[in-house]
C-alpha cells in the first residue's frame, strides 16, 4: 500500500501538448476515480502511472519513490485493462499465476496464492479453462485475480467494466468496491461513467482536455461543483443550465432567462444585470401549484420515477419526480424550485459564483 503523488505532470506528443500540468494527491488506501469524457487524458494519466507512457515533465511518485524513469515491472503496481488483456494461450490458473512466476516465486507459494485469489473471485471451477472459454464477467474476474495475487502497492483499473452488459456492470461494481474494502489497497480507477465514479470513489478527479477540473469526494462534487463542466458531468440526469441575468422585479431579486422565464434566486451579492448561468438539478425540482409555469414537451415514466421535459420559449428544463405524473404534451406544468438548491455560474468564465 502506498500513497501516490502526481505533481505537475505534462505530456506532449511531438509539439502537441495533451496534458497541461496535472496535480493529484492520492492517500494510502484511497479509492480514486479519474473521470471525464473521451479524450480528456484520464487513460493517458493512468498509463503514465503504470509506466507504459513516458511523462514529458513533472513527477510521479509511488510511496516515497519518484518513478518517472522506473520501468513498469519495477513499479510494484497491478493493472486491469479494459480488454482484460488475458494471455489467450494460458489457462486461468497460469494467467493468474503469471506475475508470481515472473517474480520467481516457488510453485507451492504460487499454487496457494492462485487458489486463494480464485476462491475470493469465485473462479475455482474455471482454473483449467482458457480465456476463450469464459464469459465476459469471468474474464474480468481473472484479470482482477491476476492483479490481486501480486499484493501490489497500487491497483490501476482502466475502464474495466466498459465491455460488460449493464446488469453485470452493477454486480462487478459492487465486487470491486467490496474487494477494496477487504484489501485496503490504493486504487486508481479510470472511467467515463459518472455513476461508477459516484458509487465507487472515495475521491473523484474530474478531467477535461488534459486538465483537472475539480477534485473532491463524490457528494462534494455533486453539491458544490466548481464550474459548469463538473456540474453537468456529475449527476444523472444532467443539471439544467439556463442562460440569463439577475434582475429585481417588483422588489424581488430574481433570475430572468434570455427568453423571459423568471426563476427564484438564492441569496447573492451580485448586482442586477449580472449575466449568469442558472443551474438546477432535475431531482431538485418538484411539481406543484405555485411554481414556474412551463409547457410539457415529453414525459418519461421509468416506474420508480418520472422525468418531465418542459420548455418556456427557448429554455428547456427537465425535472425528475418520484411520483407518477401524467400530462398531455403542450399542457401547462408548474415547477417548484427551492432557491437553496440553485447553482449560479459566471456566464463567461463558467466558474461557480
Amino acid at each position, binding site marked *: 500500500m502506498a500513497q501516490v503523488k502526481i505533481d505537475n505532470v505534462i505530456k506532449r506528443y511531438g509539439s502537441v501538448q495533451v496534458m497541461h500540468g496535472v496535480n493529484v494527491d492520492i492517500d494510502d488506501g484511497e479509492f480514486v476515480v479519474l473521470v471525464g469524457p473521451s479524450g480528456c487524458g484520464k487513460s493517458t494519466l493512468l498509463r503514465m502511472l*503504470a*509506466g*507504459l507512457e513516458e511523462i514529458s515533465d513533472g513527477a510521479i511518485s509511488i510511496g516515497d519513490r519518484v518513478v518517472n524513469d522506473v*520501468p*513498469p*515491472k519495477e*513499479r510494484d*503496481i*497491478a*493493472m486491469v*485493462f479494459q*480488454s*482484460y*488483456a*488475458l*494471455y*489467450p*494461450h*494460458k489457462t486461468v490458473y497460469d494467467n493468474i499465476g*503469471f*506475475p508470481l512466476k*515472473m*517474480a520467481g516465486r516457488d510453485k507451492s507459494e504460487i499454487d496457494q496464492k492462485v487458489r486463494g485469489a480464485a476462491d475470493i473471485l469465485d473462479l475455482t471451477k474455471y482454473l*483449467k*479453462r*482458457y480465456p476463450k*472459454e469464459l464469459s465476459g464477467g469471468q474474464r474480468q474476474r481473472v484479470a482482477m485475480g*491476476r492483479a490481486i495475487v*501480486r499484493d501490489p502497492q497500487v491497483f490501476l483499473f482502466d475502464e474495466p467494466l466498459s465491455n460488460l452488459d449493464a446488469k453485470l456492470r452493477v454486480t462487478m461494481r459492487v465486487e470491486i468496491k467490496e474487494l477494496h474494502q477487504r484489501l485496503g489497497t490504493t486504487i486508481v480507477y479510470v472511467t467515463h461513467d459518472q455513476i461508477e465514479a459516484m458509487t465507487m470513489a472515495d475521491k473523484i478527479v474530474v478531467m477535461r482536455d488534459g486538465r483537472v477540473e475539480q477534485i473532491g469526494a463524490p457528494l462534494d462534487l455533486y453539491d458544490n461543483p466548481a464550474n459548469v463542466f463538473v456540474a453537468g458531468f456529475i449527476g444523472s440526469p444532467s443539471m439544467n443550465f439556463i442562460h440569463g441575468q439577475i434582475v429585481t422585479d417588483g422588489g424581488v431579486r430574481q433570475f430572468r432567462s434570455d427568453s423571459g422565464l423568471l426563476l427564484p434566486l438564492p441569496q447573492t451579492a451580485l448586482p442586477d444585470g449580472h449575466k449568469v448561468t442558472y443551474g438546477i438539478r432535475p431531482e431538485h425540482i418538484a411539481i406543484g401549484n405555485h411554481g414556474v409555469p412551463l409547457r410539457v414537451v415529453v414525459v418519461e415514466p421509468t416506474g420508480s420515477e418520472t422525468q418531465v421535459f418542459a420548455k418556456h420559449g427557448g429554455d428547456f428544463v427537465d425535472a425528475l419526480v418520484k411520483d407518477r405524473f401524467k400530462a398531455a404534451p403542450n399542457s401547462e406544468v408548474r415547477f417548484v424550485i427551492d432557491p437553496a438548491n440553485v447553482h449560479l455560474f459566471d456566464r463567461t468564465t463558467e466558474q461557480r459564483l
Partner: protein
Amino acid sequence: MQSNRLGWILLAPTLVILFFFGVLPFIYVVYVSFHQWNPFAADPTMIFNGADNFRKIVFDAEFLNSVSVTVIFVLFAVISELVVGYVLAQAFMKEFPGKAIFRTIHTLPLIMAPIIVGSVWKLMMTPSIGIIPHYLNAWFGISINIGTSPVAAFATIIIMDIWHWTPLVTLTLIAALVSLPPDPFEQAQIDGANKRQIFFHITVPMIAPAVVATVFIRLMDALRTVDEVWMLTGGGPGSATRFVGVHIFKEVFPKTNYGYGSTISVIVLYLTIVACWLLYVTMLAPRNKKD
C-alpha cells in the same frame, strides 16, 4: 439441406480439377510404384513386380544417403530462415529510413523462379568468373570451389535457399506480429516480465500458429527442392548435394526407371506427412487439448 447442396455445387469445379490433377496422378504414381517400367525401352510394357521396388529402397545406399542429406539441408535451411525471418520481421515492425525500399528489395527473390535462382547462383559461384569466389579470395584469401568441395557446395545451397525463401517467412511473420493485440504485452511488462520472458511466454505462443504454418510450407517445399540444386551442383560433387528430389530426377530421367522413381516419390511423400504430423503434434496439439 439447401445450403449443403449449394456448398457442393460451389466446390464442384475445384473438386473436379483436384481429382484430375491431384488425386488421379497420385493414384497412378502409387500404381506405377508396384511395377517395373521403362517406357523408352524396346519393350515398354509395365511389369508388375509386387513390392520389389520397396524392398530395393531399403538397401539403396544412394537413396538413404539422399534422405540424410535432405534432412540436414532442411533442418539448417528452415531453422535459419525462421531465425533470420523473425529478426527481419521485427525490424520491419519498426520505422527506419528507407524501410519501403528495403522491404521491396528484400521481397524480390520470392518472385524469381527456382531455376533462375539456381543459374544466377551458379554464375556467381563458378571459380574464375564468379563474384563470390573472387572476393572471398581477394579479401579473405579463401578459395572455394563448389565443383570440388562438398562442404562448400552444401553450404552454398543452404545459403541460396535462405536467400530465396527467407522473405516468405518474413512476410508471414510480419502478418502474425501485426495482428497481435498490444494489451497482453503491456500487461506482461506490468506483471514483471523482462524482454526475454515476454518473448518466450507471450510472443512465441501467440505467433506459434503462424510459425507452424510457415514451417509446414517451407518444410514441404524444401523437401522437394530440385531445380535450384540441379542447376547449381547437379547433386554433386559426388553425392554431397544429391537431395531426394534430385535422386528421383536422376532415377526417372537419365535412367528412365519410372517404376522405381515412383516408389521413391511415394516414400518421400509418406516421410513428409510423418514429419508434418510430428511437428503439428509437438507444437500445436497441446494447446488445442481441452478437458
